[in-house]
């Protein structure tokens, strides 16, 4: 039987990888992918915790990731569109070049 704890550890590992990717890579696509990864890790964590509940209630925990997936899809759409726009304007995918917000 799969221990719920293992699922949480896996989720933590994936989340950490996602964060590290998001922080350490300069390519904006990788940053985006890292964020996605972190998001999915959280989904996994939700599902894992849902497993610990009695079966009639665990459905509640499994619905939340569905919403998150939907939101993540929208977020990915917007994020990619923004990245493409930025690339068109800047001719670069290096996040270090994006300093417009400095004011």
């Amino acid at each position, binding site marked *: 039987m799969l221990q719920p704890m293992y699922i949480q550890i896996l989720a933590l590992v994936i989340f950490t990888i996602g*964060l590290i990717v*998001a*922080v*350490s*890579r*300069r390519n904006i696509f990788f*940053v985006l992918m890292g964020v996605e990864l972190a998001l999915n890790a959280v989904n996994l964590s939700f599902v894992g915790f849902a497993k610990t509940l009695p079966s009639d209630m665990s459905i509640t925990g499994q619905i939340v990731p569905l919403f998150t997936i939907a939101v993540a899809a929208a977020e990915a759409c917007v994020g990619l569109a923004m990245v493409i726009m930025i690339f068109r304007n800047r001719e670069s995918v290096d*996040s*270090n070049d*994006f*300093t417009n*917000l*400095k*004011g």
Partner: protein
Amino acid sequence: MTNLPLWFIPLFPLIGCIVLGAIALISSGSKKGPSEGIVGALSVLFPALAFVSVVLLSFNMPEGGIRSTLCNWIDIPMFNVDIGFLFDSLSRIMLLFVTGIGTLIAMYSLGYMHGDRGFARFFAYINLFLFSMIVLVLSDSLLFTFLGWEGVGLCSYLLIGFWNHDVNNCKAANKAFIVNRVGDIGFLLGMLLLMTIGGSNILNYDALNAFINMIMGSAENANIVVLILSIAGICFFIGCTGKSAQIPLLTWLPDAMAGPTPVSALIHAATMVTSGVYLLARLSTMFVHLTAVLHIIVIIGMLTAFWAAVAGLFQNDIKKVLAYSTVSQLGYMFMASGAAAFDASIFHVFTHAFFKAALFLGAGAVIHSLAGEQDMRKMGGLLKKTPVTACVMIFAFLAIIGIPGFSGFWSKDLILERLYMMDWVVPVEFTIPLFNLHYSFEILMNQVVYVVGLLTAVITAVYMSRLIILTFFGSYRGSKESEAHIHEAPATMLIPMVILAFGAVFAGYFWADSMGIKYFEESLAPVVGAAQAVIHHSEAHVGAAVFAGLGTLAALLGMGIAWAKYGKARIPAAKGSSAPQGKMATWTFFWDYVHGVVITVVNAIAWVVDSCVDKLVQFAQWLVGGIAEILGDGAASFQVRKVRLQIALSIAGVAALVIVVLLTGGLI
């Protein structure tokens, strides 16, 4: 026709003003301008209607006058004033000659302003002026009088600057208005002072008189009231100095000659400038109790009369001579008021209106015939070319210098006599310590004032004779071409002049003291008689004949001096401007210098405010803005350039929060 409502009198010129103003406005776009016939008829009609209604009312006036309250004007807490009219013997006399001379001058202007582009506008202003002047004279309260008081100032402004394409005219107009404004503030403060002791009711003349009689009757706290009243009296007198061109607010009147000559005749000689004298007479009940103020008035009047007479000697511009002469004559009127001879001062106002208006209209006819030339040095010998004008002016001249039989003689003689009868002695006491000398004597101020008045009469005769000699005698000194164009004025101008000349000769017989005719005095007695009785006069030790003789002598002496100096001598050819030069200018423009100092000070303060204080405020504003900007920059510098670092920092922040929560077991 006694039931003719009083408000009809000002209504007529008001309608005239509105109608003519509308015509002027509507026709301003067209090339040709409105028909002069219609405009002219309308512009004489309305003043004439006002004159007729005044005459109708005059015949049936009851002894105490007619009072009528039209409606309420301002009604707020502490302040309630009605619009009301008071038609008594004082306002009757003023109204008769205001509307009468106004009508005549409107008629004269038809000829004078012929062909001017602003024909309708001019008469709209004239009608507005008559409306204001009638309100000034006819109102029954100080506040409503003030409406007319500022209204005439406004019309004066509009008419001085009538030919507004010339900036100098505009400046003269501005000067007139602003100087008058200074005086008007005095008037306002005077009203406020009166209100502090008696509430807003006291602004009504009847209520004021009743109040003063009551206060003076109960001698309890009269002292403090007299003090307040004295300050109020000085404030009102400041108002009068502005309107009637007395020291120190007199510089605007000579400059006001920039306006069309009929305006000078009507506003700046006959009517508006005498409203100060009218106000003093109107408030005579108050002023007779304020001996100190009366003395100030005498001194100011004396100084003004003398100063303006001397300044009149130096002028080359024919209108300027008349302007200074007006100031000087106004000085006489104020001297009379200060001697509490309000009836004599009003009488001089009355006769002066005729002879000065005749002089101005004559001067206007001369200027008209010489195509705008005003410099007397370029005139001469006009007696033969324009005989009617010359006769009118000479009659008026005889009146102003006081030749017996003419109107000026009666009024001026009366004033000098009353001045001499003043009871005013100034004790002087001083010691010179070094020699241990002690002096103590008395100055008989009445004699001093009388002598100065007589001296002024001599100077008056000199400059007026100079004017007449330079203009009408000798030979023509202008250019040959202009000589051919000299022509007598048209009939519309001559008829009013001749009527006024008759007035200048005969108006004095309303009060020919030495002939026993005292009609004028008797008719004014209900208004100023009681007040004048308060003042104690010294007994005249001198017979009336002596005064008359001295006055005549002064006039003849002045004429003689003028004849000796200007009759035979070559007049130097005119060069440059007609303004006096050198020491003469110093004398003439002395008060302009004084005003200049005040204006410079105000401008300097304005400069300081503009370039220092305002800059300081702007600097403070900039400083605050700058500090905010620096702070903003500082905050923005936390916004590091790198996106990844930003993410890392936020993760670190979350981690720190989690640790804090774990360690403290939550903040709550």
